[in-house]
């Protein structure tokens, strides 16, 4: 689900330039499936699918797989179009040290939205 982040947020991308000072280990959970995303200097440098035995991360973003699927639609429906919309309705949870996430909130919103397909013209 998140493998494409290396392409959309990797070194040299516009997203990487947006968050130059950011270094964080971000755990993305879709139901029981875990993916560890490592960001260095604003660039996604690693996307490792789980399962993990002893994962170490700064911040985790968790939602049921179905809610991620709704979020990642080209035009997501109301209530699923933004991470805070998911938080508002109790479908998403932020855990850990939230500072990297909140200090770079726009970056994370755009990074996750970069996985959406282009809307049909």
């Amino acid at each position, binding site marked *: 689900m998140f493998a494409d982040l290396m392409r959309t947020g990797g070194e040299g991308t516009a997203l990487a330039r947006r968050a130059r000072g950011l270094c964080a280990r971000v755990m993305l959970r879709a139901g029981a499936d875990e993916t560890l995303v490592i960001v260095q200097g604003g660039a996604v440098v690693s996307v490792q699918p789980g399962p993990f035995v002893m994962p170490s991360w700064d911040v985790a973003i968790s939602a049921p797989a179905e809610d991620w699927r709704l979020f990642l639609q080209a035009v997501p429906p*109301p209530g699923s179009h933004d991470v805070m919309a998911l938080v508002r309705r109790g479908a998403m949870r932020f855990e850990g040290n939230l500072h990297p996430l909140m200090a770079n909130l726009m970056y994370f919103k755009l990074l996750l939205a970069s996985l959406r397909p282009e809307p049909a013209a």
Partner: protein
Amino acid sequence: MKIEPITGRYGHLEIEGRPHRLYWEEAGEGIPLLCLHTAGADGRQWRALLNDPEITRRHRVIAYDMPRHGKSSPAPGTVDEDYRLTADGYVAQVLAVCDALELEKPVVMGCSIGGRVVLHLAERRPERFRALIGLQSGAAVPPYYDTGWLHRPDVHGGEICGAFAYGLMAPTSPAAEVDETRWHYMQGGPGVFRGDLFYYTVDGDFRDRVARIDVAKCPLHLLTGEYDYSCSPQDTRALAEALGIGWTLMPGLGHFPMSENPQAFLAHLRPVLERIRAA
């Protein structure tokens, strides 16, 4: 150069005994239509309305920047105060602006916190207004995140406020208007958005007061965008049902309809203004 028909001016008035230098923009002639911006933003949100010849032909459209917002600075000597907007203070502010501009039976239209304060106005001073319009208006929004993140030294306030505003808009709204809207938030003063949300989530809670509104004394119109998760369509529906009035769902719009997708919003607003004029 194309010059817009909007004029901006500063006025000096007292609000709750404190002197203020307040900025407002206006255009048009006719029925006064006072527009209230959202938390943490300013009157630029109403730029399309102020530029719409059909509406300004029949209405004197006025949009002021609340104190601490846009070009309205804090009252002298208060810049370092811990800012918290209250229901009493917000009502006093709107009435002071109406008095200072000598608005006779204006229509007041507010969005979000402005959509909440029209409820307080309907309860307390319905005789003062020809009609009230609440956009993204609900009786309450229980806190769903820690607003402390909006004002702390290790997080850029403009960046995070802009990011919060961004998510409240519809994914289908035009990118240029979305960017304009979040830029207003990125320019907000430190702690202002959080201070406004104190009214929105705590002091302005209207749930126990809905029954005190008599819509026969002052018509109340409610319009809400479907993508808003702060004041959701369900929130507005519950309010409308409690008041026994209808409401308008605006598909494809979010929390800032007049700013994120002005033309789509105006299509919903025009019939409301027609009904108000005809009444």
